[in-house]
């Protein structure tokens, strides 16, 4: 996908798809011994030079997690995870002078198309023609995270002029302890669920964003996550706070090397939105999905939640899920403020033996709150793809409006597509609509394309692109092109 792309190139890409990000970077890494116990939690906290309250937060989470049973309700097959065989902290050792990034890591991110030089833009220099019009206007600040440690956060100074804080979570704990302490665990409590408790105990790094009152963040903020070392898991924690009337658009991308083992990724994302503020959170998830026999791949078990605390606040989740052996992810909105809005747009593609159980929760607490859910599932190969969602309207939530649409597209005889929604309505003024359809690719459309000389495979990719368009167009421009290509790659060789 590098260099000048014409439509022929895209087609060429389609015929040779392998997981492109499966390389490893050879850097000296500081890995703590495998296993999980209180000492490991203390060690992680010490390595990050954290204050005592942070350590207590971790210990409470760890003690809770240890007593909890592993949740079994998902429509996914998670092999028992051996927590004693995972190292919970791995960070590349810095070779270069303080404040600079290891050249190997820089190369890695260059290879991934993520510029860590401030003059570059995401995809800009490398992708060429298509984005040239966009380049001029789009600048992006990136927080790059390898394994457990943040490597570099770009444009920090420029953002600081506006009072925006964008830094790694570790730095935030040291430099802005009051802010972190005020908001950490407020949206996703320590005891929320099994994996969020695990994350709370051992999380290593992630991004911290604070947008002050009335500030509109002038550029996209992005986190780029990469698992590099083997035998490790990644447990990042992201906390985004949008103060009154603030706006931010946040992107998240992720990749991992190809490995035979199943690596664990258990993240927590918390978003706290004040009055009239708006947060747009976009994810293109492309963890290593395992090979075509279902061996290896990342277990992506994450908790993402936004709290629309203030009146007229708004949160929008957009996700394109193509990677991971197992995805277990429900970006949710708690609509507490009156007139607040939540949106969820999702495309989940599963191929080979991938399994995805994903969806959202919309909890309507405030009056006149509105939510919209558009979920598109595409299953191919032997994969299982489920939408699981909840719309809950509490008794005090007058005038709630929800619209949910979840469609599934089936591309093979051996895959599965499932829909498990719950609508729990306790207020008579709510208007809740849910629609779902499941079908295979329309044969008429396929025939029409083939009749015009388009190969079956390309026709399928074209139709899938159109099917997912409603979601993909919600992504920021930089991601949309990427996502579109990912979709084509993921469903390749799945016709029939």
């Amino acid at each position, binding site marked *: 996908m590098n260099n000048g792309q014409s439509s022929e190139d895209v087609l060429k890409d389609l015929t040779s798809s392998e997981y492109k990000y499966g390389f490893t970077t050879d850097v000296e890494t500081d890995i703590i011994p495998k296993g999980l116990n209180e000492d490991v939690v203390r060690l992680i906290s010490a390595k990050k030079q954290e204050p005592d309250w942070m350590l207590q937060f971790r210990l409470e989470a760890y003690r809770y997690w240890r007593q909890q049973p592993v949740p079994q309700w998902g429509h996914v*097959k998670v092999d028992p995870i051996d927590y004693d065989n995972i190292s919970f902290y791995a960070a590349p050792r810095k070779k270069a002078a303080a404040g600079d990034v290891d050249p190997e890591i820089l190369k890695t991110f260059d290879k991934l198309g993520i510029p860590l030089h401030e003059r570059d833009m995401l995809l800009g220099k490398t992708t060429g023609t298509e984005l040239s019009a966009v380049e001029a206007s789009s600048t992006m600040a990136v927080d790059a995270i390898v394994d457990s440690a943040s490597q570099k956060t770009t444009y920090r100074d420029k953002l600081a002029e506006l009072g925006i804080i964008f830094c790694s979570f570790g730095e935030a704990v040291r430099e802005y302890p009051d802010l972190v302490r005020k908001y950490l665990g407020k949206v996703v409590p320590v005891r929320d669920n099994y994996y969020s408790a695990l994350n709370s105990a051992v999380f290593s790094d992630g991004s911290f964003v604070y947008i002050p009152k009335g500030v509109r963040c002038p550029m996209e903020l992005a986190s780029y996550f990469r698992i590099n070392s083997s035998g490790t898991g990644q447990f990042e924690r992201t906390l985004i706070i949008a103060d009154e009337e603030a706006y931010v658009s946040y992107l998240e991308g992720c990749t991992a090397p190809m490995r035979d083992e199943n690596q664990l990724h258990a993240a927590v994302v918390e978003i706290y939105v004040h009055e009239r503020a708006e947060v747009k959170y976009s994810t293109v998830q492309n963890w290593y999905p395992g090979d075509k026999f279902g061996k290896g791949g990342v277990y992506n078990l994450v908790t993402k939640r936004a709290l629309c605390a203030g009146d007229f606040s708004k949160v929008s989740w957009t996700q394109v899920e193509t990677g991971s052996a197992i995805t277990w992810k429900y970006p949710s909105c708690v609509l507490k403020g009156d007139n607040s809005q939540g949106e969820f747009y999702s495309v989940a593609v599963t191929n080979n033996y991938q399994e995805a159980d994903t969806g959202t929760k919309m909890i309507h607490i405030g009056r006149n709150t509105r939510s919209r859910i558009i979920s598109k599932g595409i299953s191919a190969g032997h994969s299982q793809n489920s939408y699981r969602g909840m719309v809950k309207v509490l008794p005090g939530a007058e005038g709630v409006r929800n619209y949910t649409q979840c469609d599934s597209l*089936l591309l093979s*005889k051996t895959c599965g597509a499932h829909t498990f929604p719950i*609508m729990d*309505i306790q207020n*008579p003024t709510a*208007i809740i609509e849910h629609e779902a359809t499941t079908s295979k690719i329309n044969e008429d459309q396929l025939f029409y394309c083939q009749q015009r000389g388009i190969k079956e495979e390309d026709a399928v990719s074209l139709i899938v692109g159109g099917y997912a368009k409603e979601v993909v167009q919600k992504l920021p421009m930089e991601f949309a092109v990427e996502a579109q290509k990912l979709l084509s790659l993921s469903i390749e060789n799945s016709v029939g």
Partner: protein
Amino acid sequence: MSSYQQYIDLFNAQRALIDEHAAPVLNAQREAAAEVLQRVGLSRPKDYTHVDPEALLAADYSLNLSRYAVPTDRSDLFTCAVPELSTSVHYLVNEQLVSHSREGDDGVFSGSLREFALRYPDIAARYYNRLAMHDEAPYDVRTQSTNVTAHRPLGEAALNTLLCQDGFVLYVPDGVVVERPIQLISLLRAVEDFMACQRILIIMGEGAKASVLICDHASQLRDCKLLSLQVTEIFCAPYSSLDFYELEEHHADCRRLSSVYVEQHEGSSAAVGQYALTAGQTRNRVFIDLLGHDADTHLYGLCIADRDQQVDNITYIRHRAPKCHSDELFKYVLDEEARGSFVGRILVQEGADKTDAHQTDRNLILTPQCHMVARPELEIYADDVKCSHGATTGQLDPVALFYMRTRGIPEAEARLLLMFAFMGDVIDGIRIDPLKDRLKHLVEKRFRGELTQCRTCAIKK
């Protein structure tokens, strides 16, 4: 102690008495049922349903194990009739048939399950309790799919099998068309807390055709709690056609735990309707297995609940053969403090291509104290399918209300008209026209609040 234990103890103590008043075919199933009940226990409300069988069955109900005849004068008890509809009527008081069994020259048998089991033990043994031992198939994490052959039985159905002594059976031999609808008027009547184990078995031979209407009523002579524990098993042989409608007009003090199991073979057609007009606490489960290709099924449900009534509908349609069609429509109107729950699951098994399955659930809630939960689920393992579900929960359209009021219709009347129209398409699904009209009438009366004790249709006290 779990509440099922008292029934196991009762069974162990009264085994001889229970067996004596039943038939060998029925008795043969009891041991297995006791084992199942011990193993799985009674169900608890889960997955957002409201009715709690474990709690309901914990009460100390009396049972009529010695089969004392209930003193009844039929003409005095029942005046239930559907105008313009001539039916062959059977009367059931609690779980006892008070009318005679009928056996026609064409081989159609309708009447007492006990008599049938004594007279035709072979047929009865072939069908009795074959479906009720099966229920929701669990999702198997090892095979990554729902294992349709590994059934998880339901405790309540096992409890019915454990204590069942009699019931109603309809047997229609191959090729016979029963012209007159068969109506079963079932009355719960007791002077103390009472539990009735109702059992219905319907066997449709190849190419047979029949329609069955069941009217459930209750009459309390004193202030007491009545529980109706029902199991219905329906077999549809290839190319048979059956209409099965159940109308519930109970009291607020009645509890009902009903499970309907339907097995359909190739080319068969079934319409199942569950209409809860007045209920106390009701849980209806409908479980339909489409085993042969080109089978066709229609499932309708209607629920009107107010006060603190609870109605759960749990449906499960499994497409296990290609080219089957299923159509499901449920509608709820909840008022006052009523609670409703709809859990509808459609499963399409691998290889069940050309499946056409649709499910719709629409709910109206009228007060802030109501609570409605809808869970429409699709689980699909085949690719050449057309499946959809839709669910809405809301209120009456204010624009429509306003329109009607501008035309001089008072608001209360306009509301009634809209609610009535809302229920229209569920009733239109009924394939017996006079019954359709009758139900429209009853629904309208219910909305007008004139049907608190089904005075018109059923019971003179």
